[in-house]
């Protein structure tokens, strides 16, 4: 267990170090959300309507940015072989990496999202709903992302490819995340059902994604 938390801690520390990518991801999120109104126009009613979706897509995209660093280093410096030789379950290692990735890349974005929601003209209820759905939904994105990172570990331009592979798999999370926010705002639509399904996705991916990621890392090695 101490090795587990050590890997999480190391992942977080490495992400915040110079060139680590966590702050770049945060800045990217800020930029994407800022660019949207220039595309669709400054109409505040429209922005309030699409705001939750904009924030969600921003999170989805910025979580893709650091995927190539997730396992690339471990593969190059031989850390991956060491872990496999040590007999520790590789899936647990993948889980720890993904958890650390979420803490460093996901959590700061979730904290900043409501502030950016204000400039998109979201009201208090929407802000709360967006933050809540991002909090429970973004770990699923990090887990799915870890699979993409594991599949492309050691490839020259793996980051782009990982993004392409991960995006279609993230569609369900996006659908239910945005649907839950809309459910909280618009009256006839349900909030609890999509919100609970979103929680289910997070738990489901937290179990299956490390297994798939570990298989990809092990098979990609030889």
């Amino acid at each position, binding site marked *: 267990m101490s090795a587990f938390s050590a890997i999480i801690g190391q992942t977080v520390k490495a992400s915040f170090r110079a060139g680590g990518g966590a702050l770049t991801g945060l800045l990217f999120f800020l930029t994407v959300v800022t660019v949207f109104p220039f595309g669709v126009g400054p109409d505040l009613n429209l922005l309030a309507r699409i705001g939750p979706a904009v924030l969600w897509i921003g999170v989805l995209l910025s979580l893709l940015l650091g995927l190539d660093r997730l396992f690339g280093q471990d593969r190059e410096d031989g850390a991956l072989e060491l872990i496999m030789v040590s007999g520790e379950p590789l899936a647990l290692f993948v889980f720890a990496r993904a958890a650390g990735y979420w803490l460093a890349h996901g959590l700061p974005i979730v904290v900043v999202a409501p502030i950016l929601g204000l400039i998109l003209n979201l009201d208090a209820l929407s802000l709360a709903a967006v933050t809540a759905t991002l909090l429970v939904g973004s770990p699923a994105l990090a887990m799915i992302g870890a699979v993409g990172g594991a599949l492309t570990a050691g490839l020259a331009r793996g980051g782009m*490819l990982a993004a392409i592979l991960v995006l279609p*798999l993230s*569609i*369900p999370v996006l659908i*239910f995340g945005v649907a839950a926010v809309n459910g909280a705002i618009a009256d006839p639509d349900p909030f609890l059902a999509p919100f609970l399904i979103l929680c289910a996705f997070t738990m489901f991916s937290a179990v299956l994604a490390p297994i*798939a990621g570990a298989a990809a890392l092990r098979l990609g090695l030889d």
Partner: protein
Amino acid sequence: MGTISSLANPTRFLSWSARILPFVSVLAAVTLGIGLYLSLVASPPDYQQGDSVRIMYVHVPASWLAMFCYLVMAGAALGTLVWRHPLADVSARAAAPIGAAFTFLALFTGSVWGKPMWGTWWVWDARLTSVLVLFIMYLGLLALWRAFDDPTRAAKVAAVLILVGFVNIPIIKFSVDWWNTLHQSASVIRLDGPSIAPSMLWPLVVMAVAYTLIFVALHLAAMRAEIYRRRARTTEILIAARRPSTAVRPAAAH
């Protein structure tokens, strides 16, 4: 191990597939001919859709094969990961471009059918959207394969992605269905009627069989090409390894 494993030996595969490939191809051509006659000449126009219903006879088989092909790849991926059979990843690799082509056809013919029926080339209908996602997944798989230079390593990693996709496809389908009922627009005409008349069912069944036979023939032929490609690659590496003076290729060993 029984006959299955001896049939699946690559060298044996090359010899038996060479023998049955002509039969499958001829059978596919004949069935396709009958199917085309039934769907273009012998079947009546629909009382609502008119003759545009004939697009169904190429659209539905294409979408059926788009899914069937992924099923074949998932089975092959299991063969690669569980039994580590070399022919399994040849099968998955050969099926992917064919599956992508059929998925493209399903999208294209669906779109062309949608224009006269719905008045628009594309609706974000649950089924069309799911097929579009499937198409993107096929292309992603092909991109992953191309990214590796070692085909065996590529095959193993791709097998993981195929199975991840296989688990995800029902989830994506469910999500898209849910998303679609939430944003239901009233103008969309549902394509699946309560029941299909026998005069239309027959051409559809024959065309579906014809498409499946075409797929089998293409898949066998593509697997043969893939085996030759890998053998040529191995030989190339062996030659490079034997002659150190010409061994300039860095990717020779893996």
